[in-house]
C-alpha cells in the first residue's frame, strides 16, 4: 500500500520542470475545459448562428437558449438512470475492488420484472391515476427487492468463494453470471425488443420553463432518483451499518478486527446496489417504453464509465458522472451533423479516455493505489 502510493510522486517528479508545470495545469483546468467544451460551444452556436425550428408552421432560424436548455435538462433526466446504475458499480468496486460485470444485466432483469409485474396485475392505460401510482409503487418495490436479492445471491455463489483467489477470477464469474442473466432475459421476453405500455403517458408535457419542456417521464426519473440518492447518502454517511460499509471498503482486515461482520456488510452492499439497479430498471422501462434482453450490457458499460469518470468508490462522483454522460449523450444525439446517435459512443468513450489521461482518479475520487 505504502509502496504503491509512492509511485505517482516518483513518476510526476521525473521530467523537465516545465513539463511538470504543464501537466499540473492541464490536470487542474484541462478537464473542466474538456467537459464544458460541448455545452459552451453549442450555447454560443445557438445564440450566434441560431438553429432551424418551426414557429407557427414556418421554418425559421431561432436564436435563443431553449434548444441547449432542453438538451441539458433531458440529459440530466436520462443521466439519472445511469447514476442509479453507476452507484451499484461504485459501491461494489469500493468494497471488494471488483468490476461487477453482471450489474448491467441485473438492471435489465429489473426492467423485465417491473414490466412483467404491472402487466401481471393488469395495469393498462385505462387504469385511474391512483391505480397507476399504487401499481407503480408496488412494481418499484418488487423490482428493487428482486434485483437486490439477485445481486446478493450472485455475490454469495460467485464472488464470496473467490474472496482469496486471484483478482481476475471473480471477474470471470461476473461475466458468467452476466451471460446467464442475459439468457434468462432472452427466454423471458424473446430476442427482439418488447414494447412497454406507456402507463404514465411519458411524453405529456407537465410544464415548460422558457421553452424547455418538462415531460412526465423526466419528472418520474428525477422524482425517483433524487430521494433514493439522498436516502443512500444518509444511510452510508450517518448510520451504523453505513459506517461498517465505509470501514470495510477502507480496510476489510481491520474492520474484521473491530468486530464488523465483513461478509454481511458486503452482502448488504450488493443488496443496496441491486435495489438501485432495480429502481433504474423500472424508470428505464417507463422512460424508453421498450425493453430488450441486451439493454443491460450497453447500460452497464455507460454506467461503469460514469462511475470511473466520477471517481470510482465515490457515490457523489457516480451521480455526477452519470449526469455528465447523460448530457453529453443528449447533445451528441440531437446535434446531427456533425454528431448524431451513431457517433455518441465514440464521444462518450473519447471523454472517458481524456479524463483518464488528465485526471486518472476521476472527478471526485481520491488518490488510490490503482490510479496515480
Amino acid at each position, binding site marked *: 500500500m505504502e509502496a504503491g502510493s509512492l509511485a505517482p510522486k516518483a513518476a510526476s517528479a521525473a521530467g523537465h520542470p516545465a513539463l511538470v508545470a504543464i501537466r499540473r495545469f492541464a490536470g487542474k483546468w484541462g478537464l473542466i475545459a474538456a467537459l464544458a467544451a460541448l455545452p459552451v460551444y453549442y450555447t454560443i452556436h445557438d445564440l450566434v448562428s441560431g438553429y432551424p425550428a418551426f414557429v407557427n408552421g414556418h421554418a425559421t432560424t431561432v436564436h435563443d437558449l431553449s434548444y441547449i436548455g432542453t438538451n441539458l435538462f433531458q440529459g440530466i433526466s436520462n443521466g439519472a438512470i445511469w447514476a442509479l446504475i453507476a452507484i451499484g458499480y461504485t459501491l461494489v468496486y469500493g468494497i471488494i475492488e471488483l468490476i461487477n460485470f453482471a450489474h448491467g444485466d441485473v438492471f435489465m432483469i429489473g426492467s423485465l420484472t417491473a414490466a412483467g409485474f404491472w402487466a401481471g396485475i393488469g395495469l393498462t392505460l385505462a387504469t385511474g391515476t391512483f391505480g397507476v401510482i399504487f401499481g407503480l409503487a408496488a412494481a418499484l418495490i418488487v423490482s428493487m427487492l428482486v434485483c437486490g436479492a439477485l445481486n446478493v445471491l450472485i455475490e454469495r*455463489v460467485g464472488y464470496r468463494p*473467490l474472496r*482469496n483467489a486471484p483478482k481476475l477470477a471473480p471477474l*470471470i464469474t461476473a*461475466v458468467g453470471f452476466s*451471460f446467464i442473466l442475459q*439468457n434468462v432475459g432472452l427466454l423471458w421476453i424473446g430476442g427482439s425488443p418488447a414494447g412497454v405500455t406507456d402507463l404514465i403517458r411519458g411524453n405529456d408535457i407537465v410544464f415548460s420553463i422558457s421553452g424547455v419542456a418538462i415531460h412526465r417521464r423526466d419528472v418520474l426519473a428525477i422524482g425517483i432518483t433524487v430521494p433514493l440518492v439522498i436516502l443512500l447518502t444518509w444511510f452510508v454517511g450517518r448510520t451504523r451499518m453505513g459506517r461498517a460499509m465505509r470501514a470495510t471498503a477502507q480496510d476489510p482486515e481491520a474492520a474484521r478486527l473491530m468486530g464488523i461482520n465483513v461478509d454481511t456488510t458486503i452482502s448488504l452492499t450488493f443488496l443496496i446496489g441491486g435495489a438501485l439497479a432495480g429502481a433504474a430498471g423500472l424508470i428505464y422501462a417507463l422512460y424508453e417504453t421498450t425493453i430488450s434482453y441486451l439493454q443491460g450490457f450497453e447500460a452497464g458499460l455507460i454506467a461503469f464509465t460514469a462511475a470511473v469518470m466520477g471517481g470510482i468508490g465515490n457515490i457523489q462522483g457516480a451521480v455526477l458522472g452519470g449526469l455528465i454522460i447523460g448530457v453529453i449523450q443528449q447533445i451528441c444525439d440531437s446535434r446531427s451533423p456533425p454528431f448524431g446517435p451513431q457517433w455518441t*459512443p465514440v464521444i462518450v*468513450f473519447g471523454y472517458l479516455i481524456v479524463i483518464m489521461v488528465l485526471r486518472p482518479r476521476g472527478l471526485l475520487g481520491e488518490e488510490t493505489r490503482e490510479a496515480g
Partner: protein
Amino acid sequence: MSELLAVLREWRAAIERWLPPWWSRALAVLLIGFGLLLPQLFSNASNFVNTEILSLTYVMFALGLNIVVGFAGLLDLGYVAFFALGSYAFGWLGSGFFYKASVHILVHGPTNSLPGIHLNFVLILICAGLLTAFAGAIIGVPTLRLRGDYIAIVTLAFGEIVRVIALNGPQIKVFGMPLTGGELGISGTDPPYLPGIGMFSQLDIRPWYYVIFALVLLTLFVNIRVRDSRLGRAWIALREDEVAAVSMGIPLVKTKLLAYALGAAFGGIAGAFLGAYTTLIDAGEFQFGFSIFVLSMVILGGLGSIWGVVLGALLLANINYYLIPDVLNSLPGDFGLNFNLNELQVSIFGFLLVLVMVLRPQGLIPERRRKLELTEGIGELELEEPGTAWSAVEPGEAAP
C-alpha cells in the same frame, strides 16, 4: 475434499517419479504430430475441422492477450480492437475494396487484373501484425500512468471506439472511398495463394488448418522464447511490483509498450487470418463480447501460463462452437425432453465459467510463479514437497 486432493497429489507425484525426465518434450512432439494428422482423419470440408481452425485462431488470440494480461499484468478489455484492425488490414490490402487504387504485389493469376489493392497473403499477415503492433503501442500510451482496473476501462473504451468507427466506416471517406464496409462488410476478398499449396478455397479447408497450425506454432515459439528472455522477466517484474522494478532500472515506458505491441501483433495476425478464412469483414463481429471471450480463455487456462492458455482457448472455443451447438443439442431429445438446448447455449457457457472459476480459481494449469503467490507464505513449503503440505490448507479456504 482436501483429503481427496491430497490423494490426487500423491498420485501425481508418483506418476512424475515414474515418468522419464524428457516426458514433457515427448508429449509436445506427440501433440504436434497429432495436430498434423488430425485433419486427415476427417473429410476435407468437415464441420469438426472447421471448428478446429476457429479454435486454433482463438489460441493465437489468447496467446497474444496472455502477453499483455498474463505476463505484463495489464488488464486489457479492448482486445477486439486488434482483431478488427487485423481483419480490416486483410480487407484493405487483399480485396477490391479500395477500388480506385491499383496495387498488385506478388499475387497470382486472375487477381492481377482486378482493381483495388492486392498483396500476397504472407505480406498481408506481416502488414497486419505491424499495423496492430503500432495501434497497440498507441492505445498503451494513455494507460502508462494507470494501473489495474483503470487500464481495463481505458482499453475497453478504445475497443468500443474502434467498434463504432468500424460500424460507421462507410460515412468516413478516405480519398473518396469509404473506410470500412460497415454492417454489410467487406466482401470479395482474395483467396490466399501460397506456392506449393496453390489457391485456397472454402471447399478444401485442410490448407487453412495447416496455415493456422503453423502460425500457432510460431506464436508458441515466440511466446516461450520471449517469456524466458530479459524482456519477459522485465514484464513479470513490472507485474509483481512496479515501483521495485522501475527502481531496479527497468525502463517502464518501453517495457509496457512492447507488451502492448507484441500482444496486439498476434491479435492482428490472427484477425487477418480469420478475415481471410471467413471471406467477409463484417463490423458486427467486433463486439465487446469477443474481448471477454478471449480473456475468459486466458484466465480459465491460468494467467501467464502458456500451456494453460492454449488449453483454455481450445476448451472454450470447442465448447462454444462445437460441443454445445452440435453435440449436446440432440441430448434433450434423446432423453425425451421437449426443449431446444440452443436457447440455453449462453447460459451453459456462463454456468461453466462460474463453475470452473469457483472450483479452480487459479486456472486449469496455473503458472508456477502465480501458484506461489496464491498460497501466500505456505506456498514455499508446497513447492518443495508436493503432496505433503497441501492437505493442510487449500487456497480457497485459506484461513483469514
